[in-house]
C-alpha cells in the first residue's frame, strides 16, 4: 500500500486533537470539584497522559493491535517498543503505521483519564498511577483489540467484536465510554463515598473551567470521531457533521429536562449535555444520517440528565457522573445503532427502523454487554487488590482538609496576599540539601549556587 499524504495529515492532526481532549477532561472535572481538590483532579488526567504514553509505546500498542490470540488480546511482544514499525514500508491502509499508533495512543489515554471523575477528592495519587498502568494493561488494551482491531489492517487477525460479532462501534462507545463508565462505577463502590456525600454542599467551584473543558472536548472530539475514518475522506466528513448535530441536540435535550424538572437550564447542564451527546454519537457517527444523529443526541441528553440522579437513589458516590454520562451515554449510542442505522450512511447497515430487522440490534447489545461486564468484573478485581494492599483512599483528615495539600503539597488558588510565610529553602529541596530541622549544614553540602552559575553562564 502507498502512503497518502492527505490521509496521513488528517490522522496526525486528529491525534493531536484527541490528545487535547484529556486536558479538556482535566478542566471539565477540575471545575466540578471543590477548590480544595482541583489540582489532584487535574493531576489524575495528566498522570494518565504520562503513564499511558509510556505504556503504549512499550507494550500497549502491541497488546491492542498485534496479532490477536483468538480475537481476545494482541501479542504484547510482537511490537514491544515499536522499533519494528518505524520503516516507511510499515503502512496500514494509506497511512504510516506510526500515525495509527499515535492516533490510538490518545484513545487509551483519555479512556483512563475519564475514570478519575468517579473517585474525585479521595484517591491516593500513587495508587491511581499504578492503577492506570494495570487497568490499561488488563482491561483497555484487550478491549481495544476486541473492538478496534480489524482483520488484515494492523495484523492478520483482529478482535472478536469487530470481526466475528460485527458490532458497529466507530470510535469507541464500547471500548472507551462503556468501558470507562463501568470501571468508574466499580471504583466508586470500592473507594466508598466522599465524606459528607449527599449531605454537604459539593458544588462545582469554578463553572467557567467546566465550560472551557467542555469546549475543548467538543473541539477535540472532531478528531476522535472524524479522525477514526483514518483518512481525509467522505466518512470523515459525514462523521464530523453527525458529531456536531448530535452534540447540539443533546445539549438542548439536557437543558429541556432541567428546565422542566428544576425550573432552570444550567450551564453545567449545557456542558454535561454536550459531553453526553459526544459520547452517544461516538459509536454511531458512521452508521446514522444527520437526522438519526439528532435523535441520538436528544435521547442521550434526556436520558443522561435523568441518569445522573441515580447515584443519590442508590447511594454510590460516582462523584462527577462518569456512570451517568459515559456509561449511560455509551449504551444509548451503541444500542441506538440497532434502531437508527441507515444504509445510506458510510457503515452501510440498516437498523430496525430502517427495515434491517433485529440483526444489528442484538449485535450491538451483545457487544455493549460484553465490554460492560468484562470491565466491571476485572476493574473490580484490580481495584480491590490495590485497595487491600497499597490502599486506594487517603486518610479521613486529609480528605477533609483537601486532597491537594495532602497529595501534592500545593494550593490551587492564591488569590490573597496573606498566605506567605517566606521562602524557607530556595532550591534546597531540589538539590537534596538538608533542611533547617535536620542535621546542621556544612560547607561541603551541594548548594544551589554552583549549578545555577553553570546553567546561566
Amino acid at each position, binding site marked *: 500500500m502507498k502512503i497518502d499524504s492527505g490521509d496521513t495529515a488528517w490522522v496526525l492532526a486528529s491525534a493531536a486533537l484527541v490528545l487535547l481532549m484529556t486536558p479538556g477532561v482535566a478542566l471539565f472535572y477540575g471545575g466540578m470539584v471543590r477548590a480544595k481538590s482541583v489540582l489532584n483532579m487535574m493531576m489524575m488526567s495528566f498522570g494518565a497522559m504520562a503513564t499511558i504514553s509510556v505504556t503504549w509505546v512499550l507494550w500497549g500498542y502491541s497488546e491492542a493491535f498485534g496479532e490477536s490470540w483468538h480475537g481476545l488480546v494482541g501479542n504484547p511482544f510482537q511490537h514491544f517498543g515499536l522499533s519494528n514499525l518505524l520503516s516507511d514500508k510499515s503502512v496500514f491502509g494509506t497511512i504510516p503505521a506510526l500515525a495509527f499508533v499515535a492516533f490510538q495512543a490518545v484513545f487509551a489515554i483519555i479512556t483512563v483519564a475519564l475514570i478519575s471523575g468517579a473517585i474525585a477528592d479521595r484517591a491516593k495519587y500513587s495508587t491511581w498511577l499504578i492503577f492506570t498502568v494495570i487497568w490499561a494493561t488488563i482491561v483497555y488494551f484487550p478491549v481495544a483489540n476486541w473492538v478496534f482491531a480489524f482483520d488484515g489492517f494492523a495484523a492478520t487477525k483482529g478482535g472478536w467484536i469487530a470481526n466475528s460479532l460485527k458490532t458497529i462501534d466507530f470510535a469507541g462507545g464500547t471500548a472507551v465510554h462503556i468501558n470507562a463508565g463501568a470501571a468508574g462505577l466499580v471504583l466508586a463502590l470500592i473507594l466508598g463515598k466522599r465524606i459528607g456525600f449527599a449531605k454537604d454542599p459539593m458544588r462545582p467551584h469554578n463553572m467557567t473551567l467546566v465550560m472551557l473543558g467542555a469546549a475543548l472536548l467538543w473541539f477535540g472530539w472532531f478528531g476522535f470521531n472524524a479522525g477514526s475514518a483514518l483518512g481525509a475522506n467522505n466518512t470523515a466528513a459525514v462523521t464530523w457533521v453527525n458529531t456536531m448535530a448530535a452534540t447540539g441536540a443533546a445539549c438542548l435535550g439536557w437543558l429541556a429536562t432541567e428546565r422542566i424538572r428544576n425550573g432552570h437550564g444550567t450551564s453545567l447542564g449545557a456542558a454535561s449535555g454536550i459531553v453526553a451527546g459526544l459520547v452517544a454519537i461516538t459509536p454511531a457517527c458512521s452508521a446514522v444520517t444527520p437526522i438519526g444523529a439528532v435523535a441520538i443526541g436528544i435521547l442521550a441528553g434526556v436520558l443522561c440528565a435523568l441518569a445522573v*440522579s441515580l447515584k443519590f437513589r442508590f447511594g454510590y458516590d460516582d462523584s462527577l457522573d462518569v456512570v451517568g454520562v459515559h456509561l449511560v451515554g455509551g449504551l444509548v449510542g451503541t444500542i441506538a445503532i440497532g434502531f437508527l442505522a441507515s444504509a445510506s450512511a458510510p457503515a452501510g447497515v440498516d437498523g430496525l427502523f430502517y427495515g434491517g430487522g433485529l440483526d444489528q440490534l442484538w449485535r450491538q447489545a451483545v457487544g455493549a454487554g460484553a465490554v460492560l461486564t468484562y470491565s466491571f468484573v476485572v476493574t473490580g478485581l484490580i481495584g480491590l487488590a490495590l485497595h487491600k494492599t497499597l490502599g486506594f483512599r487517603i486518610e479521613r483528615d486529609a480528605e477533609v482538609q483537601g486532597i491537594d495539600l495532602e497529595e501534592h503539597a500545593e494550593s490551587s488558588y492564591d488569590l490573597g496576599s496573606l498566605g506567605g510565610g517566606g521562602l524557607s529553602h530556595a532550591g534546597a529541596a531540589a538539590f537534596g540539601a538538608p533542611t533547617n530541622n535536620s542535621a546542621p549544614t556544612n560547607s561541603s553540602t551541594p548548594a544551589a549556587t554552583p549549578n545555577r552559575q553553570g546553567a546561566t553562564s
Partner: protein
Amino acid sequence: MKLVTAIIKPFKLDEVKQALEAYGITGMTVSESSGYGRQRGHSEVYRGAEYKVDFVPKVRVEVVVDDVDAGDVAMVILKAAQTGRIGDGKIWTVPVEDVIRVRTGERGLDAL
C-alpha cells in the same frame, strides 16, 4: 466616637458610598462578607441535585464617626441600601474608645 457597621446587598454599595460622600463622610472600609438572617440562603441546582446555600454574599461597610453624626449616618445608609425586599441587611452602631491615624499619630476625632 461610634463605629457604624452596615451589612448590605452587594449591588447597593455604590449608592451607599455616594450617599455617605454626599453627607460628608471622608472614608470608609468595605469588605466582602457572607451570611444569613431571616432571609436564609437560596438553593442552587447542579445536575439535578439541589443544594441549599446558606451563606449569601454581602458587603460590609464600616464607618467611624463623631457621636453626634452616628444616628444620621445610619439613616443615610438605611435610605441608600433599602430595597424593601427580604435580605436588605442590618446596620448596627457601637462605641469606639480611640482612633489613631497611623501616618501622624493623631488621635480621636482628629484622626477621622
